[in-house]
């Protein structure tokens, strides 16, 4: 059709010009509106929309990092993380038949109703159905192929040693964070950094993994402890046996490498099994060797004697008037269990005379006496970095009364933890050098602090050897084939500021005395029954652990094998 030929009326030509202009403007505005909207959506609002869009099918899941392994000094695993699977669901996406639901509930070990309850909560798009399922069961769950239900890899911590190492290692929570013990104190090193990964969900709610890794997980590093798992076991078995035999409240044992200050074993009884996920009772969780203070009693005397020897007024054979076993200081009486007119310095240690120790302490000024104790590490943290360590407190020498100085000389009125006490004995094993204690394996032996002269340290060690000989307080601490040097301790317990007839029995010693390799400290809290002296309760445990540990380490003998002498019927008990 040819429009040009159509005749046009004048009225049509007279259409007002504004109409086309209006149309033109309208079109232009519409276009501008659309453009603006497009710019808004594509540019300014883009991020939000993109995010919403991704949220429809994308999920970011966490990729857990492997927690470092804890091994003993010989590389034996003490705590290992193994992968397990956790089953999680996205409730909106779950579609399953009643039969599948039943199977699922059975596999994850929940009742049908529990599963239903978890899945009916639509407010979250992530719900754990069951955490830490063994891989075998997890595979069966994924074989059910229920949309919206997926697996997530996690790690679970296992402790092959169980209760033998539980106080030492502590445990981790379900999220793999250390909660107690070494797991807690070395969290920064052991714990890895979880990574994240983007996944997409298909039409039916299944997760298609490995779309992109946003952040690779950073694995935790392994930690080698100074612990020797064989000695740890020996120590644990012995302390358990002793506590049960004497119906005691508790007991602790510490084994140190005398040369390097490394902790070779640290165990307590009662304890718990760290593999068990139920939170143990608080009193079982306490690592008493580190977190509990006790009055050391006579195990303090060697430090008093060493300070007195250093002071120059005493020699090992200096005779001290022990006042027939009763001596009055500042209106208070100090007693010995056995009345002796006089004893040499060496005999004061051997027979554990309180009067003798008090006299030696009072020959020193309070300042020198207190300084010598604090130099030995009393009243300060051991540096083991064990969580919750109790350091005890030393009295200020300025307010120290003579009677207090006298009682402190035999370990009353001062509290220590067992690790502190064991560590202090390193001075007698290392020619007067106090070693720092550590729970980590050391490649080079740590340098200690020189406190006493070589001569003083050796003289005190010789006196400590007399303690285990007949006539001393601890013949039961003898070990076949090795010379032993050590000291017993028996102290009354304090209750509401008063000493009561309940005791703490202890023994700290080292062997072989000619060149000490190990220090073993044993503490038994409230042995019930007629035997409560350190020499009767703690010394046999010391002997068993020391003997077995020295044999385990192939330490050469320094005494003939028939060196163990029959103890006299009546063992001298030190004053409690």
């Amino acid at each position, binding site marked *: 059709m040819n429009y040009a030929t159509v005749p046009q009326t004048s009225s049509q030509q007279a259409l007002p010009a504004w109409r086309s202009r209006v149309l033109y403007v309208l079109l232009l505005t519409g276009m501008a509106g659309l453009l603006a909207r497009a710019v808004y959506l594509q540019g300014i609002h883009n991020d939000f929309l993109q995010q919403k869009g991704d949220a429809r099918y994308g999920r970011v899941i966490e990729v857990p990092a492997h927690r470092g392994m804890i091994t003993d000094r010989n590389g034996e695993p003490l705590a290992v993380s193994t*992968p397990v699977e956790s089953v999680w669901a996205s409730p909106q996406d779950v579609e399953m038949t009643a039969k599948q639901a039943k199977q699922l509930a059975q596999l994850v070990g929940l009742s049908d109703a529990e599963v239903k309850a978890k899945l009916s909560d639509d407010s979250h798009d992530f719900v754990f159905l069951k955490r830490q399922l063994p891989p075998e069961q997890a595979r069966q769950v994924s074989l059910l192929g229920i949309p919206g239900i997926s697996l997530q890899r996690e790690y679970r911590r*296992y402790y092959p040693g169980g209760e*033998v190492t539980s106080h030492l290692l502590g445990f981790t929570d379900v999220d793999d964070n250390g909660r107690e013990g070494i797991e807690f104190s070395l969290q920064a090193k052991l714990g890895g950094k979880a990574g994240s990964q983007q996944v997409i969900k298909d039409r039916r709610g299944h997760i298609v993994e490995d779309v992109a890794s946003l952040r690779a997980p950073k694995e935790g590093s392994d930690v080698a402890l100074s612990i020797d798992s064989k000695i740890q076991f020996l120590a644990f078995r012995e302390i358990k046996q002793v506590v049960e035999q004497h119906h005691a409240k508790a007991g602790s044992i510490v084994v140190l490498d005398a040369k390097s200050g490394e902790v070779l074993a640290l165990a307590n009884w009662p304890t718990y099994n760290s593999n068990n996920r139920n939170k143990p009772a608080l009193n079982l969780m306490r690592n008493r060797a580190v977190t509990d203070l006790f009055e050391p009693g006579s195990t303090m005397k060697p430090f008093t004697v060493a300070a007195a020897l250093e002071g120059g007024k005493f020699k090992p054979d200096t005779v001290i008037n022990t006042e027939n076993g009763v001596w009055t200081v500042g209106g208070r009486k100090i007693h010995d269990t056995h009345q002796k007119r006089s004893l040499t310095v060496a005999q004061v240690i051997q027979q554990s005379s309180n009067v003798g120790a008090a006299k030696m302490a009072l020959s020193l000024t309070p300042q020198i006496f207190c300084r010598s104790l604090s130099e030995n590490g009393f009243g300060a943290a051991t540096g083991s970095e064990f969580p919750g360590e109790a350091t005890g407190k030393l009295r200020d020498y300025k307010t120290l009364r003579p009677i207090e100085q006298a009682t402190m000389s035999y370990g009353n009125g001062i509290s220590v933890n067992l690790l502190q006490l064991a560590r202090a004995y390193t001075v007698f094993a290392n020619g007067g050098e106090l070693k720092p204690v550590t729970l980590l394996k050391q490649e080079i032996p740590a340098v200690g602090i020189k406190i006493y002269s070589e001569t003083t340290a050796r003289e005190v060690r010789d006196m400590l050897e007399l303690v285990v000989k007949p006539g001393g307080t601890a013949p039961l601490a003898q070990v076949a084939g090795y010379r032993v040097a050590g000291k017993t301790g028996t102290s009354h317990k304090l209750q509401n500021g008063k000493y009561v007839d309940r005791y703490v029995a202890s023994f700290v010693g080292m062997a072989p005395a000619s060149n000490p390799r190990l220090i073993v400290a044993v503490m038994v809290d409230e042995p019930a029954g007629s035997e409560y002296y350190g020499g009767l309760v703690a010394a046999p445990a010391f002997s068993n652990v020391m003997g077995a540990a020295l044999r385990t380490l192939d330490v050469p003998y320094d005494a003939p*094998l028939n060196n163990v002498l029959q103890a006299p019927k009546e063992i001298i008990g030190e004053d409690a």
Partner: protein
Amino acid sequence: MTSQHKARKLFVELQNEKERAQQMDVEWGRLQLEQSTLVTPGRVESLARQQLQMHMPQSDQIRYIRSNGVVTGLQ
């Protein structure tokens, strides 16, 4: 086109290998755990004592061979 196809194939292969590595990792962890549980001193000791009837030698049952070849011990 060819290179894209190749890249996809390689990616799938990589995923498979990763999967295998992961499975081996699981297996290794399990075996490690199993081994360390089997060799705990407590278990070894009870097996030695009960099944094999072993015991610690008394000091008079021990002979020592010195480095010069002399055998010592107590009768």
